[in-house]
Protein backbone atom coordinates (compact mmCIF):
# COMPACT_ATOMS: atom_id res chain seq x y z
CA UNK A 1 0.00 0.00 0.00
CA UNK A 2 2.78 2.42 0.92
CA UNK A 3 4.67 1.63 -2.31
CA UNK A 4 1.48 2.38 -4.29
CA UNK A 5 1.16 5.69 -2.49
CA UNK A 6 4.82 6.48 -3.22
CA UNK A 7 4.32 5.61 -6.91
CA UNK A 8 1.29 7.89 -7.17
CA UNK A 9 3.16 10.72 -5.47
CA UNK A 10 6.17 10.15 -7.74
CA UNK A 11 3.94 10.38 -10.82
CA UNK A 12 2.57 13.69 -9.52
CA UNK A 13 6.11 14.98 -8.90
CA UNK A 14 7.15 14.02 -12.42
CA UNK A 15 4.14 15.78 -13.93
CA UNK A 16 4.97 18.97 -12.07
CA UNK A 17 8.66 18.65 -12.96
CA UNK A 18 7.87 18.16 -16.63
CA UNK A 19 5.65 21.24 -16.61
CA UNK A 20 8.38 23.24 -14.90
CA UNK A 21 11.03 22.12 -17.44
CA UNK A 22 8.79 22.97 -20.38
CA UNK A 23 8.00 26.40 -18.97
CA UNK A 24 11.69 27.05 -18.29
CA UNK A 25 12.74 25.99 -21.79
CA UNK A 26 9.93 27.92 -23.45
CA UNK A 27 10.86 31.05 -21.51
CA UNK A 28 14.51 30.74 -22.51
CA UNK A 29 13.66 30.12 -26.15
CA UNK A 30 11.38 33.16 -26.23
CA UNK A 31 14.10 35.27 -24.63
CA UNK A 32 16.68 34.06 -27.14
CA UNK A 33 14.38 34.62 -30.07
CA UNK A 34 14.93 38.36 -29.73
CA UNK A 35 18.71 38.00 -29.47
CA UNK A 36 19.77 35.62 -32.23
CA UNK A 37 23.55 35.73 -32.33
CA UNK A 38 25.60 35.94 -35.52
CA UNK A 39 29.18 34.82 -36.05
CA UNK A 40 30.30 38.13 -37.55
CA UNK A 41 29.21 40.05 -34.44
CA UNK A 42 30.35 37.51 -31.86
CA UNK A 43 33.76 36.64 -33.33
CA UNK A 44 35.49 39.98 -32.62
CA UNK A 45 34.42 39.84 -28.96
CA UNK A 46 35.97 36.45 -28.21
CA UNK A 47 38.96 36.45 -25.85
CA UNK A 48 40.12 33.10 -27.16
CA UNK A 49 39.24 30.87 -30.07
CA UNK A 50 39.30 27.08 -30.01
CA UNK A 51 41.75 25.41 -32.33
CA UNK A 52 39.61 22.30 -32.63
CA UNK A 53 35.83 22.22 -32.53
CA UNK A 54 33.96 18.92 -32.54
CA UNK A 55 30.27 18.62 -33.34
CA UNK A 56 28.30 15.59 -32.15
CA UNK A 57 25.13 15.08 -34.19
CA UNK A 58 23.15 13.16 -31.60
CA UNK A 59 20.18 10.90 -32.01
CA UNK A 60 18.85 8.01 -29.97
CA UNK A 61 17.99 4.52 -31.13
CA UNK A 62 14.36 5.47 -30.75
CA UNK A 63 14.64 8.82 -32.51
CA UNK A 64 14.52 9.63 -36.22
CA UNK A 65 17.59 11.00 -38.02
CA UNK A 66 17.83 12.81 -41.31
CA UNK A 67 21.03 12.67 -43.39
CA UNK A 68 20.13 15.90 -45.17
CA UNK A 69 19.86 17.73 -41.85
CA UNK A 70 23.12 16.21 -40.67
CA UNK A 71 24.89 17.25 -43.86
CA UNK A 72 23.45 20.74 -43.57
CA UNK A 73 24.67 21.01 -39.96
CA UNK A 74 28.17 19.96 -41.02
CA UNK A 75 28.15 22.44 -43.90
CA UNK A 76 27.07 25.29 -41.65
CA UNK A 77 29.64 24.41 -39.00
CA UNK A 78 32.39 24.36 -41.64
CA UNK A 79 31.37 27.78 -42.88
CA UNK A 80 31.30 29.31 -39.41
CA UNK A 81 34.62 27.74 -38.48
CA UNK A 82 36.17 29.36 -41.53
CA UNK A 83 34.62 32.71 -40.65
CA UNK A 84 36.12 32.58 -37.17
CA UNK A 85 39.40 31.06 -38.43
CA UNK A 86 39.10 27.84 -36.45
CA UNK A 87 41.55 25.44 -38.10
CA UNK A 88 39.98 22.10 -37.15
CA UNK A 89 36.42 20.82 -37.22
CA UNK A 90 35.36 17.27 -36.46
CA UNK A 91 31.83 16.12 -37.15
CA UNK A 92 30.70 12.98 -35.35
CA UNK A 93 27.72 10.74 -35.59
CA UNK A 94 27.69 7.45 -33.78
CA UNK A 95 26.78 5.13 -36.63
CA UNK A 96 28.95 6.73 -39.33
CA UNK A 97 26.00 7.93 -41.43
CA UNK A 98 27.98 10.90 -42.70
CA UNK A 99 30.91 8.62 -43.53
CA UNK A 100 28.57 6.55 -45.67
CA UNK A 101 27.32 9.65 -47.46
CA UNK A 102 30.64 11.37 -48.02
CA UNK A 103 29.78 12.31 -51.58
CA UNK A 104 26.66 14.11 -50.35
CA UNK A 105 28.73 16.02 -47.80
CA UNK A 106 31.37 16.99 -50.36
CA UNK A 107 28.63 18.13 -52.74
CA UNK A 108 27.18 20.28 -49.97
CA UNK A 109 30.60 21.80 -49.29
CA UNK A 110 31.13 22.29 -52.99
CA UNK A 111 27.95 24.34 -53.25
CA UNK A 112 29.04 26.60 -50.44
CA UNK A 113 29.96 30.17 -51.14
CA UNK A 114 32.11 31.05 -48.21
CA UNK A 115 32.94 34.51 -47.11
CA UNK A 116 36.52 34.87 -46.06
CA UNK A 117 37.63 37.69 -43.85
CA UNK A 118 40.49 39.17 -45.85
CA UNK A 119 41.11 42.59 -44.38
CA UNK A 120 42.88 45.16 -46.52
CA UNK A 121 44.77 47.72 -44.48
CA UNK A 122 42.59 50.00 -42.44
CA UNK A 123 39.43 47.91 -42.61
CA UNK A 124 38.63 45.17 -40.15
CA UNK A 125 35.87 43.28 -41.89
CA UNK A 126 36.30 43.42 -45.64
CA UNK A 127 35.01 40.30 -47.28
CA UNK A 128 35.37 38.65 -50.61
CA UNK A 129 33.27 35.84 -51.93
CA UNK A 130 35.05 32.66 -52.82
CA UNK A 131 33.63 29.76 -54.72
CA UNK A 132 34.74 26.39 -53.44
CA UNK A 133 35.29 23.44 -55.66
CA UNK A 134 35.37 20.01 -54.10
CA UNK A 135 36.35 17.21 -56.38
CA UNK A 136 36.88 13.99 -54.50
CA UNK A 137 40.16 13.64 -56.31
CA UNK A 138 42.89 16.29 -56.38
CA UNK A 139 42.17 19.14 -58.84
CA UNK A 140 43.40 18.89 -62.48
CA UNK A 141 46.54 20.89 -63.34
CA UNK A 142 44.69 23.20 -65.74
CA UNK A 143 42.47 24.36 -62.89
CA UNK A 144 44.01 27.74 -62.34
CA UNK A 145 41.37 30.12 -61.06
CA UNK A 146 43.04 32.33 -58.51
CA UNK A 147 40.37 31.85 -55.90
CA UNK A 148 39.56 28.18 -56.35
CA UNK A 149 39.91 25.77 -53.46
CA UNK A 150 39.47 22.05 -53.52
CA UNK A 151 38.66 19.67 -50.71
CA UNK A 152 40.77 16.56 -51.00
CA UNK A 153 40.20 13.56 -48.80
CA UNK A 154 43.40 12.36 -47.23
CA UNK A 155 44.32 8.70 -47.33
CA UNK A 156 41.80 7.04 -45.04
CA UNK A 157 42.64 6.18 -41.50
CA UNK A 158 40.33 3.76 -39.81
CA UNK A 159 36.84 5.13 -39.08
CA UNK A 160 37.85 8.68 -39.86
CA UNK A 161 37.85 10.71 -43.05
CA UNK A 162 39.82 13.93 -43.28
CA UNK A 163 38.95 16.63 -45.77
CA UNK A 164 41.54 19.29 -46.28
CA UNK A 165 41.85 22.23 -48.61
CA UNK A 166 44.36 21.60 -51.33
CA UNK A 167 45.52 25.24 -51.25
CA UNK A 168 44.63 28.41 -49.45
CA UNK A 169 45.12 32.11 -50.30
CA UNK A 170 46.94 33.43 -47.28
CA UNK A 171 48.13 31.10 -44.62
CA UNK A 172 49.62 33.24 -41.88
CA UNK A 173 49.11 30.92 -39.00
CA UNK A 174 50.89 27.57 -38.92
CA UNK A 175 49.99 26.59 -35.38
CA UNK A 176 50.70 23.07 -34.30
CA UNK A 177 47.28 21.45 -34.35
CA UNK A 178 48.06 19.42 -31.25
CA UNK A 179 49.08 22.43 -29.23
CA UNK A 180 47.10 24.53 -26.81
CA UNK A 181 44.83 27.45 -27.40
CA UNK A 182 45.37 30.17 -29.92
CA UNK A 183 44.90 33.57 -28.35
CA UNK A 184 42.82 35.92 -30.39
CA UNK A 185 44.55 39.16 -31.25
CA UNK A 186 42.41 42.15 -30.55
CA UNK A 187 41.57 44.00 -33.72
CA UNK A 188 42.73 47.46 -34.55
CA UNK A 189 42.42 49.38 -37.73
CA UNK A 190 46.02 48.73 -38.58
CA UNK A 191 46.00 45.05 -37.72
CA UNK A 192 44.32 41.91 -39.09
CA UNK A 193 41.34 40.74 -37.09
CA UNK A 194 41.44 37.09 -38.05
CA UNK A 195 44.00 35.29 -40.11
CA UNK A 196 42.65 33.09 -42.85
CA UNK A 197 43.81 29.59 -41.90
CA UNK A 198 43.08 26.36 -43.74
CA UNK A 199 40.23 24.35 -42.29
CA UNK A 200 40.62 20.62 -41.78
CA UNK A 201 37.36 18.72 -41.46
CA UNK A 202 37.28 15.25 -39.94
CA UNK A 203 34.26 13.00 -40.16
CA UNK A 204 34.10 10.47 -37.35
CA UNK A 205 32.03 7.61 -36.06
CA UNK A 206 32.11 5.54 -32.88
CA UNK A 207 34.82 3.37 -34.44
CA UNK A 208 37.24 6.29 -34.07
CA UNK A 209 36.97 6.03 -30.26
CA UNK A 210 37.21 3.02 -27.99
CA UNK A 211 37.98 0.53 -30.80
CA UNK A 212 41.05 2.61 -31.65
CA UNK A 213 42.30 2.40 -28.08
CA UNK A 214 41.88 -1.36 -28.31
CA UNK A 215 43.84 -1.21 -31.59
CA UNK A 216 46.66 0.56 -29.74
CA UNK A 217 46.76 -2.36 -27.33
CA UNK A 218 46.70 -4.82 -30.21
CA UNK A 219 49.53 -3.06 -32.03
CA UNK A 220 51.66 -3.14 -28.85
CA UNK A 221 50.93 -6.86 -28.54
CA UNK A 222 51.90 -7.50 -32.14
CA UNK A 223 55.05 -5.43 -31.70
CA UNK A 224 56.16 -7.38 -28.64
CA UNK A 225 55.48 -10.67 -30.42
CA UNK A 226 57.30 -9.61 -33.58
CA UNK A 227 60.33 -8.56 -31.57
CA UNK A 228 60.02 -11.54 -29.20
CA UNK A 229 60.12 -9.14 -26.28
CA UNK A 230 58.06 -8.87 -23.13
CA UNK A 231 55.76 -5.84 -23.18
CA UNK A 232 57.07 -2.67 -21.60
CA UNK A 233 56.32 -2.63 -17.89
CA UNK A 234 55.48 1.04 -17.63
CA UNK A 235 53.55 2.25 -20.62
CA UNK A 236 53.16 6.03 -20.35
CA UNK A 237 50.28 8.34 -21.19
CA UNK A 238 52.52 10.18 -23.66
CA UNK A 239 53.29 6.96 -25.53
CA UNK A 240 49.62 6.05 -25.84
CA UNK A 241 48.85 9.63 -26.90
CA UNK A 242 51.41 9.43 -29.68
CA UNK A 243 50.14 6.03 -30.82
CA UNK A 244 46.48 7.08 -30.89
CA UNK A 245 47.37 10.23 -32.83
CA UNK A 246 49.34 8.20 -35.36
CA UNK A 247 46.33 5.91 -35.79
CA UNK A 248 43.56 8.48 -35.98
CA UNK A 249 45.16 11.85 -36.70
CA UNK A 250 42.59 13.28 -34.31
CA UNK A 251 44.00 16.06 -32.10
CA UNK A 252 42.66 17.00 -28.70
CA UNK A 253 39.30 18.75 -28.70
CA UNK A 254 38.98 22.29 -27.32
CA UNK A 255 35.22 22.80 -27.75
CA UNK A 256 32.69 20.01 -28.04
CA UNK A 257 29.19 20.93 -29.23
CA UNK A 258 26.51 18.31 -28.68
CA UNK A 259 23.55 18.89 -30.97
CA UNK A 260 20.50 16.60 -30.60
CA UNK A 261 18.85 16.32 -33.99
CA UNK A 262 15.42 15.69 -32.50
CA UNK A 263 13.75 18.95 -31.55
CA UNK A 264 11.43 17.39 -29.01
CA UNK A 265 13.95 15.15 -27.33
CA UNK A 266 13.98 15.25 -23.54
CA UNK A 267 17.31 13.48 -23.19
CA UNK A 268 19.89 14.85 -20.80
CA UNK A 269 23.37 15.33 -22.18
CA UNK A 270 25.14 12.14 -23.30
CA UNK A 271 28.35 11.62 -25.28
CA UNK A 272 27.02 8.97 -27.72
CA UNK A 273 30.26 7.01 -27.90
CA UNK A 274 32.47 9.98 -28.81
CA UNK A 275 36.22 9.17 -28.69
CA UNK A 276 37.05 9.38 -24.98
CA UNK A 277 40.79 9.99 -25.23
CA UNK A 278 40.49 13.29 -27.09
CA UNK A 279 37.76 14.93 -24.99
CA UNK A 280 39.87 15.16 -21.85
CA UNK A 281 39.81 18.95 -21.43
CA UNK A 282 37.11 19.87 -23.95
CA UNK A 283 34.65 22.58 -23.01
CA UNK A 284 31.19 21.10 -23.51
CA UNK A 285 28.23 22.94 -24.94
CA UNK A 286 24.91 21.12 -25.03
CA UNK A 287 22.48 22.62 -27.52
CA UNK A 288 19.52 21.25 -25.59
CA UNK A 289 16.28 21.05 -27.55
CA UNK A 290 14.08 24.03 -27.02
CA UNK A 291 10.60 24.63 -28.37
CA UNK A 292 11.52 27.50 -30.68
CA UNK A 293 8.33 26.76 -32.44
CA UNK A 294 5.42 24.60 -31.46
CA UNK A 295 5.65 22.89 -34.84
CA UNK A 296 9.28 21.86 -34.30
CA UNK A 297 8.52 20.63 -30.82
CA UNK A 298 5.29 18.86 -31.76
CA UNK A 299 6.53 17.21 -34.93
CA UNK A 300 9.85 16.13 -33.46
CA UNK A 301 11.42 16.76 -36.87
CA UNK A 302 15.20 16.77 -37.12
CA UNK A 303 16.66 20.25 -36.82
CA UNK A 304 20.00 21.52 -38.13
CA UNK A 305 22.59 23.34 -36.04
CA UNK A 306 21.85 27.06 -35.85
CA UNK A 307 24.25 29.99 -35.97
CA UNK A 308 22.90 31.17 -32.63
CA UNK A 309 23.84 27.88 -30.94
CA UNK A 310 27.30 27.89 -32.52
CA UNK A 311 27.91 31.44 -31.30
CA UNK A 312 26.76 30.59 -27.77
CA UNK A 313 29.16 27.68 -27.74
CA UNK A 314 32.01 29.96 -28.81
CA UNK A 315 31.05 32.50 -26.16
CA UNK A 316 31.04 29.90 -23.41
CA UNK A 317 34.42 28.66 -24.55
CA UNK A 318 35.76 32.20 -24.64
CA UNK A 319 34.72 32.89 -21.06
CA UNK A 320 35.76 29.54 -19.56
CA UNK A 321 38.74 29.45 -17.23
CA UNK A 322 41.12 26.52 -17.64
CA UNK A 323 43.01 25.92 -14.40
CA UNK A 324 44.55 22.60 -15.48
CA UNK A 325 44.67 21.19 -11.99
CA UNK A 326 45.90 24.34 -10.25
Amino acid at each position, binding site marked *: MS*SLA*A*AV*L*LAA*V*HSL*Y*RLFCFAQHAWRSLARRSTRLRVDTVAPTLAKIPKHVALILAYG*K*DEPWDIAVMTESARRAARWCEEVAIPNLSVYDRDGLLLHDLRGLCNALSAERVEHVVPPSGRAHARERVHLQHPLTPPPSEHSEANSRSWSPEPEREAIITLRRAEHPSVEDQDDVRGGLRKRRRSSHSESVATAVPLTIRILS*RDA*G*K*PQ*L*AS*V*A*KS*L*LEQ*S*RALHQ*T*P*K*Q*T*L*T*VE*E*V*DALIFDMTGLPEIDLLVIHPLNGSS*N*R*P*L*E*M*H*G*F*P*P*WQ*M*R*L*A*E*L*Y*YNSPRPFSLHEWWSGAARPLTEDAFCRALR*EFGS*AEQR*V*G*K
Partner: protein
Amino acid sequence: MSPAPQSSTSSLPVHYARVVLAYILLKLKLFIIWVLKAGPMPQHVAFVMDGNRRYSRRKGVEVREGHSQGFVALRRVLEICFKLDIKCVTVYGFAIENFKRSEDEIANLMQIAKDGLNSFCEQDDLLQANGVRLNVIGHKSLLPVDVQEAIDRAESLTKHNSRSILNICFPYASRHEMTCAIGQSVQDAVDNASPNITEQDVDERLFTSQGLSPPLDVLIRSSGVKRFSDFLLWQCSENTQVHFTPTYWPEYGLRDFGPVILDFQRRMWSKRVHS
Protein backbone atom coordinates in the same frame (compact mmCIF):
# COMPACT_ATOMS: atom_id res chain seq x y z
CA MET B 1 17.03 36.12 43.28
CA SER B 2 18.19 38.05 40.32
CA PRO B 3 16.10 37.66 37.15
CA ALA B 4 17.56 35.58 34.23
CA PRO B 5 19.42 37.70 31.67
CA GLN B 6 17.17 38.91 28.84
CA SER B 7 19.41 37.42 26.11
CA SER B 8 19.21 33.78 27.32
CA THR B 9 15.39 33.78 27.66
CA SER B 10 14.92 35.37 24.20
CA SER B 11 17.32 32.93 22.53
CA LEU B 12 15.49 29.85 23.83
CA PRO B 13 12.49 30.19 21.46
CA VAL B 14 14.92 30.79 18.59
CA HIS B 15 16.86 27.69 19.58
CA TYR B 16 13.69 25.60 19.81
CA ALA B 17 12.50 26.98 16.47
CA ARG B 18 15.78 25.94 14.87
CA VAL B 19 15.53 22.45 16.33
CA VAL B 20 11.96 22.09 15.09
CA LEU B 21 12.89 23.42 11.66
CA ALA B 22 15.84 21.03 11.40
CA TYR B 23 13.54 18.15 12.38
CA ILE B 24 10.95 19.15 9.77
CA LEU B 25 13.63 19.47 7.08
CA LEU B 26 15.05 16.07 7.96
CA LYS B 27 11.62 14.45 7.76
CA LEU B 28 10.92 16.23 4.48
CA LYS B 29 14.22 14.97 3.07
CA LEU B 30 13.39 11.40 4.11
CA PHE B 31 9.92 11.76 2.60
CA ILE B 32 11.35 12.96 -0.73
CA ILE B 33 13.80 10.05 -0.75
CA TRP B 34 10.93 7.63 -0.05
CA VAL B 35 8.97 9.03 -3.01
CA LEU B 36 11.97 8.97 -5.38
CA LYS B 37 12.70 5.35 -4.53
CA ALA B 38 9.38 4.34 -6.09
CA GLY B 39 10.99 4.82 -9.52
CA PRO B 40 14.12 3.38 -11.20
CA MET B 41 17.45 4.34 -9.64
CA PRO B 42 20.84 4.71 -11.31
CA GLN B 43 23.20 1.90 -10.36
CA HIS B 44 26.35 4.03 -10.53
CA VAL B 45 26.66 7.78 -10.01
CA ALA B 46 29.89 9.79 -10.21
CA PHE B 47 30.55 13.24 -8.78
CA VAL B 48 33.20 15.81 -9.66
CA MET B 49 33.31 17.73 -6.38
CA ASP B 50 34.24 21.12 -7.78
CA GLY B 51 33.99 24.60 -6.33
CA ASN B 52 35.44 24.36 -2.79
CA ARG B 53 37.89 27.20 -3.32
CA ARG B 54 35.42 29.48 -5.08
CA TYR B 55 32.95 28.76 -2.28
CA SER B 56 35.54 29.78 0.33
CA ARG B 57 36.31 33.01 -1.59
CA ARG B 58 32.62 33.86 -1.77
CA LYS B 59 32.16 33.20 1.94
CA GLY B 60 35.32 35.09 2.83
CA VAL B 61 36.93 32.12 4.60
CA GLU B 62 40.19 30.31 4.10
CA VAL B 63 40.54 27.70 1.39
CA ARG B 64 41.02 24.97 4.00
CA GLU B 65 37.58 25.78 5.39
CA GLY B 66 36.14 25.41 1.89
CA HIS B 67 37.71 21.96 1.56
CA SER B 68 36.43 20.99 5.01
CA GLN B 69 32.91 22.02 4.04
CA GLY B 70 33.41 20.06 0.85
CA PHE B 71 34.05 16.93 2.91
CA VAL B 72 30.90 17.61 4.93
CA ALA B 73 28.99 17.88 1.64
CA LEU B 74 30.51 14.58 0.51
CA ARG B 75 29.18 12.81 3.58
CA ARG B 76 25.78 14.42 3.11
CA VAL B 77 25.55 13.35 -0.54
CA LEU B 78 26.81 9.84 0.20
CA GLU B 79 24.12 9.46 2.84
CA ILE B 80 21.48 10.48 0.30
CA CYS B 81 22.88 8.06 -2.29
CA PHE B 82 22.95 5.11 0.09
CA LYS B 83 19.42 5.87 1.32
CA LEU B 84 18.33 5.87 -2.33
CA ASP B 85 19.95 2.41 -2.68
CA ILE B 86 22.39 3.58 -5.34
CA LYS B 87 24.78 0.65 -5.59
CA CYS B 88 27.96 2.48 -6.56
CA VAL B 89 29.20 6.03 -6.07
CA THR B 90 32.47 7.36 -7.51
CA VAL B 91 33.92 10.70 -6.47
CA TYR B 92 36.83 12.67 -7.90
CA GLY B 93 38.82 13.41 -4.78
CA PHE B 94 42.13 14.56 -6.20
CA ALA B 95 43.48 14.80 -9.73
CA ILE B 96 47.07 13.90 -10.58
CA GLU B 97 47.35 17.42 -11.98
CA ASN B 98 46.29 18.85 -8.61
CA PHE B 99 49.86 18.22 -7.44
CA LYS B 100 50.62 21.51 -9.22
CA ARG B 101 48.82 23.35 -6.40
CA SER B 102 50.64 25.00 -3.52
CA GLU B 103 52.34 22.78 -0.94
CA ASP B 104 50.11 24.17 1.80
CA GLU B 105 46.93 23.32 -0.04
CA ILE B 106 48.17 19.83 -0.93
CA ALA B 107 49.16 19.19 2.69
CA ASN B 108 45.73 20.38 3.83
CA LEU B 109 43.96 18.11 1.32
CA MET B 110 46.06 15.14 2.37
CA GLN B 111 45.19 15.78 6.02
CA ILE B 112 41.48 16.00 5.20
CA ALA B 113 41.77 12.76 3.25
CA LYS B 114 43.56 11.00 6.12
CA ASP B 115 41.06 12.24 8.70
CA GLY B 116 38.18 11.27 6.45
CA LEU B 117 39.54 7.78 5.84
CA ASN B 118 40.07 7.29 9.57
CA SER B 119 36.52 8.42 10.27
CA PHE B 120 35.23 5.94 7.69
CA CYS B 121 36.88 3.20 9.73
CA GLU B 122 34.76 3.88 12.79
CA GLN B 123 32.19 1.22 13.47
CA ASP B 124 29.06 3.32 13.36
CA ASP B 125 30.25 5.51 10.59
CA LEU B 126 28.64 5.96 7.20
CA LEU B 127 30.39 3.15 5.34
CA GLN B 128 30.07 0.44 7.94
CA ALA B 129 26.49 1.39 8.79
CA ASN B 130 25.47 1.13 5.13
CA GLY B 131 27.53 -1.91 4.16
CA VAL B 132 29.75 0.05 1.77
CA ARG B 133 33.00 -1.31 0.37
CA LEU B 134 35.63 1.36 -0.14
CA ASN B 135 37.97 1.42 -3.16
CA VAL B 136 40.56 4.13 -3.53
CA ILE B 137 41.61 4.17 -7.17
CA GLY B 138 44.32 6.00 -9.04
CA HIS B 139 48.07 6.48 -8.94
CA LYS B 140 48.31 5.80 -5.20
CA SER B 141 52.09 5.51 -5.21
CA LEU B 142 52.24 9.30 -5.60
CA LEU B 143 50.65 9.78 -2.17
CA PRO B 144 52.48 10.28 1.14
CA VAL B 145 53.10 7.03 3.02
CA ASP B 146 50.78 7.90 5.93
CA VAL B 147 47.89 8.53 3.52
CA GLN B 148 48.58 5.22 1.76
CA GLU B 149 48.48 3.48 5.13
CA ALA B 150 45.15 5.12 5.99
CA ILE B 151 43.80 3.96 2.61
CA ASP B 152 44.95 0.38 3.19
CA ARG B 153 43.37 0.36 6.63
CA ALA B 154 40.02 1.71 5.42
CA GLU B 155 39.88 -0.63 2.42
CA SER B 156 40.76 -3.61 4.56
CA LEU B 157 38.09 -2.82 7.15
CA THR B 158 35.34 -2.49 4.54
CA LYS B 159 36.37 -5.20 2.07
CA HIS B 160 33.67 -7.63 3.22
CA ASN B 161 30.85 -5.11 2.82
CA SER B 162 28.63 -5.97 -0.11
CA ARG B 163 25.65 -3.65 -0.15
CA SER B 164 27.27 -0.73 -2.03
CA ILE B 165 30.60 0.47 -3.41
CA LEU B 166 32.33 3.80 -2.88
CA ASN B 167 35.18 4.62 -5.28
CA ILE B 168 37.35 7.54 -4.30
CA CYS B 169 39.59 8.66 -7.17
CA PHE B 170 42.70 9.83 -5.36
CA PRO B 171 44.96 10.80 -7.18
CA TYR B 172 43.46 10.03 -10.53
CA ALA B 173 43.52 10.83 -14.24
CA SER B 174 41.39 9.02 -16.76
CA ARG B 175 44.12 8.87 -19.37
CA HIS B 176 46.38 7.27 -16.78
CA GLU B 177 43.63 4.73 -16.03
CA MET B 178 43.14 3.94 -19.73
CA THR B 179 46.91 3.64 -20.21
CA CYS B 180 47.16 1.18 -17.31
CA ALA B 181 44.23 -0.82 -18.72
CA ILE B 182 45.88 -0.97 -22.15
CA GLY B 183 49.20 -2.03 -20.63
CA GLN B 184 47.54 -4.68 -18.49
CA SER B 185 45.54 -6.07 -21.40
CA VAL B 186 48.75 -6.41 -23.44
CA GLN B 187 50.50 -8.18 -20.56
CA ASP B 188 47.55 -10.53 -20.00
CA ALA B 189 47.33 -11.31 -23.72
CA VAL B 190 51.01 -12.26 -23.72
CA ASP B 191 50.63 -14.37 -20.58
CA ASN B 192 47.53 -16.14 -21.92
CA ALA B 193 48.76 -16.36 -25.52
CA SER B 194 45.59 -14.57 -26.68
CA PRO B 195 45.57 -13.71 -30.38
CA ASN B 196 43.68 -10.47 -30.03
CA ILE B 197 42.76 -7.61 -27.69
CA THR B 198 39.24 -6.24 -27.84
CA GLU B 199 37.49 -3.19 -26.49
CA GLN B 200 35.96 -5.43 -23.84
CA ASP B 201 39.41 -6.55 -22.70
CA VAL B 202 40.45 -2.95 -22.07
CA ASP B 203 37.13 -2.15 -20.37
CA GLU B 204 37.54 -5.03 -17.90
CA ARG B 205 40.94 -3.74 -16.81
CA LEU B 206 39.88 -0.23 -15.86
CA PHE B 207 40.23 0.60 -12.16
CA THR B 208 36.46 0.88 -11.76
CA SER B 209 35.85 -2.49 -13.41
CA GLN B 210 38.49 -4.17 -11.29
CA GLY B 211 36.59 -2.87 -8.26
CA LEU B 212 33.44 -4.55 -9.67
CA SER B 213 31.67 -1.25 -10.30
CA PRO B 214 28.64 -1.42 -12.61
CA PRO B 215 28.52 0.73 -15.77
CA LEU B 216 28.28 4.45 -15.09
CA ASP B 217 24.72 5.80 -15.35
CA VAL B 218 25.08 9.43 -14.24
CA LEU B 219 28.00 11.86 -13.97
CA ILE B 220 27.55 15.17 -12.14
CA ARG B 221 29.93 18.10 -11.96
CA SER B 222 29.28 20.98 -9.60
CA SER B 223 30.36 24.65 -9.73
CA GLY B 224 29.21 25.36 -13.28
CA VAL B 225 32.34 24.09 -15.04
CA LYS B 226 31.39 22.10 -18.14
CA ARG B 227 34.38 19.83 -18.69
CA PHE B 228 35.34 16.27 -17.79
CA SER B 229 38.86 17.31 -16.75
CA ASP B 230 40.27 13.82 -17.30
CA PHE B 231 37.66 12.04 -15.19
CA LEU B 232 36.07 8.69 -16.18
CA LEU B 233 36.34 9.49 -19.90
CA TRP B 234 36.01 5.87 -21.04
CA GLN B 235 33.19 5.10 -18.62
CA CYS B 236 31.03 8.12 -19.50
CA SER B 237 31.55 8.21 -23.25
CA GLU B 238 28.31 6.31 -23.82
CA ASN B 239 25.04 5.52 -21.99
CA THR B 240 25.89 7.99 -19.22
CA GLN B 241 23.79 11.05 -18.47
CA VAL B 242 25.99 14.05 -17.80
CA HIS B 243 24.79 16.92 -15.60
CA PHE B 244 26.51 20.22 -14.95
CA THR B 245 25.15 22.24 -12.06
CA PRO B 246 26.17 25.78 -11.06
CA THR B 247 26.03 24.95 -7.33
CA TYR B 248 29.39 24.90 -5.55
CA TRP B 249 30.15 21.50 -4.06
CA PRO B 250 29.97 22.51 -0.36
CA GLU B 251 26.36 23.58 -0.98
CA TYR B 252 25.34 20.53 -3.03
CA GLY B 253 22.46 18.47 -1.68
CA LEU B 254 19.12 16.85 -2.38
CA ARG B 255 17.77 20.06 -3.93
CA ASP B 256 20.35 19.64 -6.73
CA PHE B 257 20.43 15.86 -6.84
CA GLY B 258 16.66 15.33 -6.89
CA PRO B 259 16.15 16.73 -10.44
CA VAL B 260 19.03 14.55 -11.67
CA ILE B 261 17.21 11.48 -10.37
CA LEU B 262 13.96 12.68 -11.97
CA ASP B 263 15.73 13.14 -15.34
CA PHE B 264 17.18 9.65 -15.06
CA GLN B 265 13.80 8.15 -14.29
CA ARG B 266 12.16 9.93 -17.23
CA ARG B 267 14.85 8.60 -19.53
CA MET B 268 14.49 5.05 -18.22
CA TRP B 269 10.72 5.09 -18.68
CA SER B 270 11.11 6.56 -22.16
CA LYS B 271 13.53 3.74 -23.10
CA ARG B 272 11.11 1.09 -21.83
CA VAL B 273 8.20 2.57 -23.82
CA HIS B 274 10.20 2.60 -27.06
CA SER B 275 11.61 -0.86 -26.56
